[in-house]
């Protein structure tokens, strides 16, 4: 089991090499080092997973101590790893997808002036992500949590010369920090209540029933943790950073802002299931926020022109699904969808990357079209991802979304209805995207020459016709496409085939996640209705956008502008809030607080100047001063006479 250490050690080693190697490792050595480390980490994870399979289901939780971090009185924080089905699930797909995307990046980032820096961040990200999921305590997880946030910052702002990238990076970090505020408050509450952050100390007794949690405490804890998740996983109201995060290189969008980091919130909620169990209201909040986000983001995705922004909103929407599943009590479904989403969304982003790559940094779908024949591999793989995301059977998305919708139905038909509508919208905007990019007429021809070799993403490519990406990029696409097509087999809802569910079962004992039975008929009905909606959306999208890219009626400004929510928030921040801050800073601080201090100094100087007037230089005036002083003393003492 010492492979467990290797899971973390390898990416960390890669990070160190790339940090201190600097530019000397160069292009493409940096990429290969990073990929090697990622793959090594994945292999180590697989080894650990295999060895865990050897344990009985009940004893599939292994702790690995590292070292004492913060020993202060009753607060004794140690770093350690907890290897259990839940953490390994995340570790597996994170390192797996991470490896593929790192590999893909070798080709994608070719020629970039900061090649080494990119892979440094990629490895550091992987390390942080693995810390996040493998940590044995909330606090250690928080370390990884912040680490991935930092990497996200660094990678969104990777092309820092672009102001938009720099701003987006900062926005992502700040928004994440709002969520972290919740996470930290939750940590403090945990410390106050349990005097520990360890999963084994905090959660295990709750899960096993040895301890119960008062409703208010549970709700507070759960909601604060969920606030953290909302920030990291871009849910209402903290979702606005994710679309902007598309400023980063596309592999980053694929890895961090689709497949792995943004699912950290899902992980956190799943991990905290024992706490949520004691707070039905918190569960409702999770489910409702998830459903609302899913719907809202899906509507916005329908109006976007940027190939990556569509996928970004789609990610937000799909994350909403995951929370809907978890909030509905079916953690397995949420996690299943997370894993599936990792496959197909990574695939879609990488495919989009291949398109952007081919078109020399063009991201506007309105300026694409007809790429099917130029980019065969990309097109086919993208199609797989598109169908998986659209929940068309038998692709991945269908199965996982079906499980979530079933759970939502069980929770409340209203949630289910939202989910179904969202499913239709999802199919619509994805089909819109697919036909705008790959179908129809080519709308890019004229622009190819203009761009020439200028685009730095395109690196060494000359101008001219778009052509397929090199193998180092297409191989990951193919692997992910396969995953998107048959990945669902890991948790097929048929007797005996629900491997994932059984694997996760020890983490979610019936006490905290009571299984519910949805009648088979209902199940079929739910699946059928959802599929019908999805096909409806698919057909609508295809028919609407097959021939033309200009349909203003279907792209109202309100959708293109994401319901103006971002603008409103910005206006508030730069308007009244900025004025308030400015008032505090210049009015109160410079004016009042500092003014008071300077005023005292001024008073002293001024009184000195005024008093000089009494120093007339005339002897008799001085004598008068003495006389007045004498008189004053006499007068005072006269009042004390006889005493």
């Amino acid at each position, binding site marked *: 089991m010492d492979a467990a250490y290797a899971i973390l050690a390898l990416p960390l080693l890669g990070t160190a090499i790339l940090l201190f190697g600097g530019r000397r490792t160069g292009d493409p050595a940096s990429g290969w080092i990073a990929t090697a480390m990622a793959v090594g980490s994945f292999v180590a994870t697989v080894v650990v997973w295999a060895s865990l399979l050897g344990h009985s289901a009940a004893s599939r939780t292994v702790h690995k101590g590292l070292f004492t971090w913060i020993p*202060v*009185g009753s607060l004794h924080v140690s770093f350690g790893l907890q290897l259990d089905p839940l953490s390994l699930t995340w570790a597996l797909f994170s390192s797996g997808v991470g490896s593929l995307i790192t590999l893909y990046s070798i080709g994608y980032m070719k020629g970039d002036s900061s090649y080494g*820096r990119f892979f440094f961040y990629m490895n550091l990200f992987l390390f942080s992500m693995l810390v996040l999921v493998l940590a044995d305590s909330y606090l250690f997880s928080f370390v990884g949590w912040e680490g991935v946030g930092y990497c996200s910052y660094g990678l969104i702002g990777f092309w820092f010369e672009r102001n938009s990238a720099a701003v987006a990076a900062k926005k992502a970090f700040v928004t994440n920090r709002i969520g972290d505020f919740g996470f930290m*408050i939750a940590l403090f509450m945990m410390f106050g*209540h349990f005097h520990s952050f360890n999963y084994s100390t905090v959660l295990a007794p709750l899960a096993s029933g040895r301890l119960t949690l008062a409703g208010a405490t549970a709700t507070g804890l759960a909601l604060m943790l969920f606030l953290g998740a909302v920030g990291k996983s871009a849910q209402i109201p903290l979702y606005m950073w994710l679309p902007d995060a598309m400023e980063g290189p596309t592999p980053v969008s694929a890895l961090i802002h689709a497949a792995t980091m943004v699912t950290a919130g899902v992980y956190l909620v799943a991990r905290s299931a024992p706490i949520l169990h004691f707070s039905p209201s918190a569960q409702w909040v999770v489910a409702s926020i998830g459903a609302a986000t899913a719907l809202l983001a899906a509507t916005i995705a329908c109006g976007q022109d940027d190939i990556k922004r569509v996928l970004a909103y789609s990610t937000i929407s799909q994350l909403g699904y995951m929370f809907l599943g978890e909030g509905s009590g079916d953690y397995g479904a949420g996690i299943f969808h997370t894993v599936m989403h990792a496959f197909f969304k990574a695939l879609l982003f990488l495919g989009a990357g291949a398109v952007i790559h081919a078109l020399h940094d063009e991201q506007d779908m309105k300026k694409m079209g007809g790429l099917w024949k130029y980019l065969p591999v990309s097109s086919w793989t993208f199609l797989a991802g598109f169908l998986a995301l659209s929940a068309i059977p038998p692709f991945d998305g269908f199965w996982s979304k079906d499980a979530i919708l079933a759970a939502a139905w069980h929770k409340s038909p209203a949630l289910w209805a939202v989910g179904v509508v969202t499913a239709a919208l999802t199919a619509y905007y994805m089909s819109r995207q697919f036909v705008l990019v790959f179908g129809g007429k080519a709308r890019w021809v004229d622009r190819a020459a203009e761009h020439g070799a200028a685009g730095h993403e395109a690196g060494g490519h000359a101008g001219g016709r778009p052509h397929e990406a090199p193998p180092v990029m297409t191989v990951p696409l193919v692997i992910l496409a396969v995953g998107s097509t048959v990945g669902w087999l890991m948790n097929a809802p048929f007797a005996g085939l629900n491997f994932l569910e059984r694997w996760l079962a020890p983490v979610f004992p019936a006490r905290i996640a009571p299984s519910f039975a949805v009648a088979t008929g209902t199940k079929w009905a739910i699946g059928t209705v959802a599929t019908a909606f999805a096909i409806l959306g698919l057909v609508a999208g295809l028919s609407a956008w097959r021939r033309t890219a200009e349909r203003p009626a279907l792209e109202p400004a309100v959708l293109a502008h994401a319901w103006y929510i971002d603008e409103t928030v910005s206006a508030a921040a730069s308007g009244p809030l900025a004025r308030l801050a400015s008032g505090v*800073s210049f009015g109160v601080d410079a004016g009042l607080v500092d003014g*008071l201090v300077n005023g005292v100094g001024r008073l002293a100087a001024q009184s000195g100047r005024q008093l000089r007037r009494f120093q007339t230089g005339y002897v008799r005036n001085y004598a008068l001063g003495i006389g007045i002083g004498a008189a004053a003393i006499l007068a005072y003492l006269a009042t004390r006479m006889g005493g």
Partner: protein
Amino acid sequence: MGSVGTVGSVAASTLGFPILTVIVFLPLGGAILTALVPASDDGLARRVGLLAAVAEVGFVAYLLVAFKPVAGFQFVSQQPWIGSFGIAWKVGVDGISLFLVAVSALLFLVAMAGPPLRGSARAFMTWMLLLEAACIGAFLSMDLFLFFVMFEVTLVPAYFLVAGWGGPRRNYAAMKFFIYTFAGSAFFFVALLSLVFLTAPAHHGHATFDLITLTRLAGGLPHADQVLIFAGFAVGFAVKAPLVPFHSWLPDAYTEASTGGSMVLAGVMFALGGYGILRLGVFILPRGASDLAPVLLTLAVVGITYGAVVTIMQRDLKRLVAYSAIVSVAFVVLGEFAFSAQGVAGGVLQMVNESLTIGALFYMVGVVAERRGALRFSELGGIQKSAPILAAVFLAVVLSAVGLPGLNGFVSEFLVLAGTFVTHRWWAVVATTAIITGVIYFLWAYQRVFHGPARAANAAVREMSWGEIAAVAPLLAGIAFLGVYPAPLLDRLTPSVDHLLAHVQSADPAAHVPRISGGALSYSVPADQNVDSGLQTPAGAGATAAPVGAGAPAGAGSGAASSASAVPAAPSGGTR
């Protein structure tokens, strides 16, 4: 934790010579030597000064190694000074002061060696070494008069460092700094004298300034007196730290000072306030402290929020960094007055971290300033393109400042907040917003300086030289080490903190002090002379150097007590 048997050997391990006295006087001697170098030979002056600073770091490093992780003062050395007033030269070090001394020595070295210097190196080195002696002297003082002397003496070199090597408004800034702090000390001074005078009757009518004795005696004062005296202390230290609303000297002084000056001003001198209020205020006057804790906590929280808002509005890099110090200092106070082991330890750790972080920040600001001249955001941007290493180092320091886990800032911030949360929940919740606001202003600043398109002079900024990297490297190493593995520090700090809190609680059972060690509140301490506890006076007070090994038998019991304090406590009413 030191095992039971080693406490006696703490004494035995004491050197044959008074190391702390040497540590205080070494920079002073260096200053005198530097001043004696002929004015024409600036290079020699610089070498002499640096040699003194390096030697100081060496001695302090030895101290770190020799220090035993138990409560109480170690390496105590004592000399009568102004006997008729009960004033003595008495220095000692405990877990709380140890790391402040260490980080001060380091920061002074970096501040002297790192930034390039215009003007007279001789004068600069002399003032810096004087300041170092005074700061470290204050941290090591076990005599309140001595502390006050050191505390006040710092002003003179600091004044000249700002006024002599600063920016365009340096005279204004230096004067404001001096007078403001001097005025703040007025209250501290009078309170100190009142304390000494009022405790004299309980001390056979003799005034004493001895920290330990006063700690014992002050408990006997009337409650109101304790509160008033504490209030006087608090004003003095609140100005020094500074705590909002006494901060208005800070942005001017920190901004106008030269790089080296800003580093030590913001990195070391602020800690005199944070340390003083804990050592003198809380330790001696626990009842006053606990009565006024809500006020100070509130000021701290106001400082955290208000300071953040004001910082966000700054349009000059150095001024922004200067303002950010207000927030960091508020964290120190917040932790210290949370009266929980985590809070106090966090507060002390925050001081150490702040020294490293803000020292490095000001250093990096200096590096940028040297290349670009201007520090206004409107004139900066895109520097990362031409100077990626500079940007990376700057970012690392910024991340430390915003409290990214894995770097030092997080550990102390977390301890402070967690420690405050268990005793003063809502204060902690409001203070936690700092993790958001800190990111806003620091990342905004970073973005404005390093990101975006590089215009004009920003496009050809020189990369950091190896010398500059070497100068900041010790600070970066500290930042990383304390972020990843603060345990060695905390292990040495915690016994002293526990001791302090036990004292606070025994003095004021009503104080909101969570129990820190499972029921073992009867806190006995080493009776050994070299391990001078807060609750016992050394038998041979007045002896110049404590006899080695004296009182070893008493060490056993005390060791047991101190190890008991390390046992993780039973959960207290966290939901209180």
